[in-house]
């Protein structure tokens, strides 16, 4: 049973009592089927009788508006944007994730610090800085990484939005003026970073090139052991 509940320095005033709920994180690029999978898992867990709270990035009451504005203007440096995201994440962690876990709910996080770290790192932040920055984050009980090929992400993005998003194509990195080219290069950089983090943080990789039902069967098998009555509580 690991002693550490956070990766680094805990939050000041973090509750010392046991956080009874489970924290399950789903990571993966846009188009990896992450959000669909969160919905399916939520439905399944609730049917099984477990209270579920889902959370995602940029859903905090404190800052989501500022982040939207900042992205529109595109004038912030990589460091500033990384810090803005971290403030937003901290707000959600303290005001939503921790209280929900303390109340015994399962928290399904649609993306977590790993996406934020990967985005900062491919934009030039040092890994050591990013890790220290997010040191206050709770260590999840399970992190599922939905891994899909860039071709698949591309087709899903076009099918869904009819175009490639400026930020998901990493246009701010100036990798290429051509959005299609930039999308490929940016997603490759992120995938490389996720590959590195996979072993560092113990992600469970799920092949997301398959239809949602197949993905769901596998994620359910990963999640189920957390809810067996004999499962030892980690927190």
């Amino acid at each position, binding site marked *: 049973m*690991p002693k*550490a509940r956070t*990766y*680094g*320095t805990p*939050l*000041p*005033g973090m509750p010392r009592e046991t956080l009874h709920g489970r924290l399950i994180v789903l990571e993966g690029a846009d188009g990896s089927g992450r959000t669909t999978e969160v919905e399916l898992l939520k439905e399944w867990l609730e049917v099984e009788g477990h209270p579920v709270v889902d959370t995602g990035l940029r859903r905090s*009451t*404190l*800052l989501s508006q*500022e982040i939207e504005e*900042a992205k529109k203007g595109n004038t*912030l*440096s990589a*460091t*500033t944007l990384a*810090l*803005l995201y*971290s*403030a937003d994440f*901290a*707000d959600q962690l*303290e*005001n939503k994730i921790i209280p929900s876990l303390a109340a015994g709910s399962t928290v399904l996080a649609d993306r977590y610090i790993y996406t934020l770290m990967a985005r900062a790192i491919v934009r030039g932040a*040092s*890994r*050591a*800085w990013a*890790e*220290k*920055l997010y*040191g*206050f984050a709770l*260590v*999840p*009980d*399970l*992190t599922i990484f939905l891994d899909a090929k860039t071709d698949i992400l591309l087709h899903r993005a076009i099918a869904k939005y009819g175009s490639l998003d400026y930020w998901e194509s990493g246009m701010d990195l100036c990798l290429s003026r051509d959005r299609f080219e930039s999308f490929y290069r940016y997603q490759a950089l992120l995938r490389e970073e996720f590959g590195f983090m996979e072993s*560092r*943080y*113990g*992600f*469970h990789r799920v092949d997301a090139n398959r239809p949602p039902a197949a993905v769901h069967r596998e994620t359910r098998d990963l999640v189920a052991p957390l809810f067996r009555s004999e499962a030892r509580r*980690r927190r």
Partner: protein
Amino acid sequence: MAGSLPPPSPTPKPSPTAAKFAGRLIIFEGLDGSGKSTQARLLVKWLQARGYRVFFTEWNSSELISDTIRRGKKKNLLTPTTFSLLHATDFADRLEQHILPPLRAGYVVICDRYAYTAFVRDAARGCDPDWVRSLYGFAPTPDKVFYFRVPVATSLARKVASRQKISYYEAGMDLGLADDVIASYEKFQSRLKREYERLVTIDRFVVIDADRPVETVLNQVRREVRPLLTGFPKAESLVHAEG
């Protein structure tokens, strides 16, 4: 396995030092009412009169996230961590927009408060000092940091005499140190002072006894700044160097 701590991270890169920039970076730190702002402004005047290109900036209100901080403060939504991260965000933006360009262009950049203000304020609120310091790892180490040392009583007396309203967060009321604003301010400023004193050796502050007449203090500040400007180009030579 998931949940276990990852292996130790590589040693963080040391902060860039101002020495690699064409300009000079001079910082004024100290409690409210320590006289640091007055001194900073007088130094700006003196340097300008001597023909240097000077850029002055203060870190007291935030442009980028002022609305967020204001809204968060109003609803008491902020925790020590979000408070700290929002200020770091604001500082990063200021650094990129206002401090680095003149520093790279060869100005004497004078800052009324810098990352050290965050170090002391966030530590006083209970954030881990090493964590806060690491957030600011991107900030260049200045050429000189003046720390204006005053007793807390002086800070308080000047604050009261100025008839400025002491704000909720300035008084550290969010920490529940005391019910009364004045009592809370005093306790909170004592914590800040303790943190400043801790940084004196770590960050090689030039300690200024600020409980003296303005002119005396200013002479000391000038004496400290002079060696930084040996061989430093004045505005005129910069303008004509290209032509």
